[in-house]
């Protein structure tokens, strides 16, 4: 039940994030959308690793079934990767802001060409 709720949340976050990415014009807003969407993708994996009434997959942490450790491990990796790409893209946004004095995507497209 919790897992299913969380997968629905993950889908909603994907929609929200990607929709924001597509409908905003400012680069930082687009990146915020991307941020939310990647959070959704991560949550999606964790939610699929969950089992009803599960406990953390650590030895000695109580009885009962444990959650699947593999998706959790993947998500750890994915979170770091998303942070890395975000930091790099923000640096590029700073660079463009300093040189082109705008963060508006249509303006940048007009100046730099497709």
């Amino acid at each position, binding site marked *: 039940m919790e897992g299913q709720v969380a997968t629905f949340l993950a*889908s909603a976050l994907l929609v929200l994030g990607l929709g924001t990415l597509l409908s905003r014009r400012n680069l930082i807003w687009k990146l915020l959308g991307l941020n939310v969407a990647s959070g959704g993708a991560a949550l999606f994996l964790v939610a699929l690793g969950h089992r009803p009434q599960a406990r953390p997959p650590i030895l000695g942490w109580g009885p009962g079934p444990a959650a699947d450790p593999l998706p959790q491990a993947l998500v750890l990796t994915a979170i770091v990767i998303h942070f890395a790409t975000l930091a790099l893209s923000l640096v590029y946004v700073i*660079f463009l802001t300093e040189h082109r004095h705008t963060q508006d995507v249509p303006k940048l497209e007009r100046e730099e060409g497709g």
Partner: protein
Amino acid sequence: MRRGAWLATLTLGGLIGWATTGLFPRPPLPPWEAVTSQWGARNAVAAVVLGARLYDTLLEVLVFSMALVGVRWALRPLPQTEGRPPVAESPLLERAADVLLPAIGVFGVYLAASGHLGPGGGFPAGAILGSGLLLLALARGIRALARELPQPLLSRLEYGGLAALIVLGGGSLTLGWRGAWLLVLANLLILAKVSTGAWVVLEHFAAHRGEV
């Protein structure tokens, strides 16, 4: 265009949501306790991240390092902002920094070193250590502190940690190294790498900071 965009994302989200309904209820988990202890861990996630999939983690650390190289390289031609620190300097904050610095250091190292036993690990520990140090450094004036810190030492710590991790990953993958020592060592190396990395990113961003 905008309406079409929302429609497309909604359809996609709906499709994904529909696809998950076929996955519930989830099948039982294959046994994991034995494999975890085989890697010398109690935390199964640590056994996966630092043991079975150390190769992935190694590539991930490389991704992280490359982002840092990019931050340094791309900000290089831009002018730096001198002047007022983002956080107001005050004697109280400085005293607080003196008290909190060692505490954060100990906490970070503990979190990393015990990552194979419970929740923790090098990455979050490095992030906490790096950003905590920076927050406190802001109180003292970050430019001054950055000048005092020996840059060669930082980069040696960063790339040396990376190189050691590559050796560790290669050894684990080809020679079958395993055991608790491997996990602790890997976590500490990641801690060194990520905390210096987080420091470097934040310091560079702060040096070129915008209006906040």
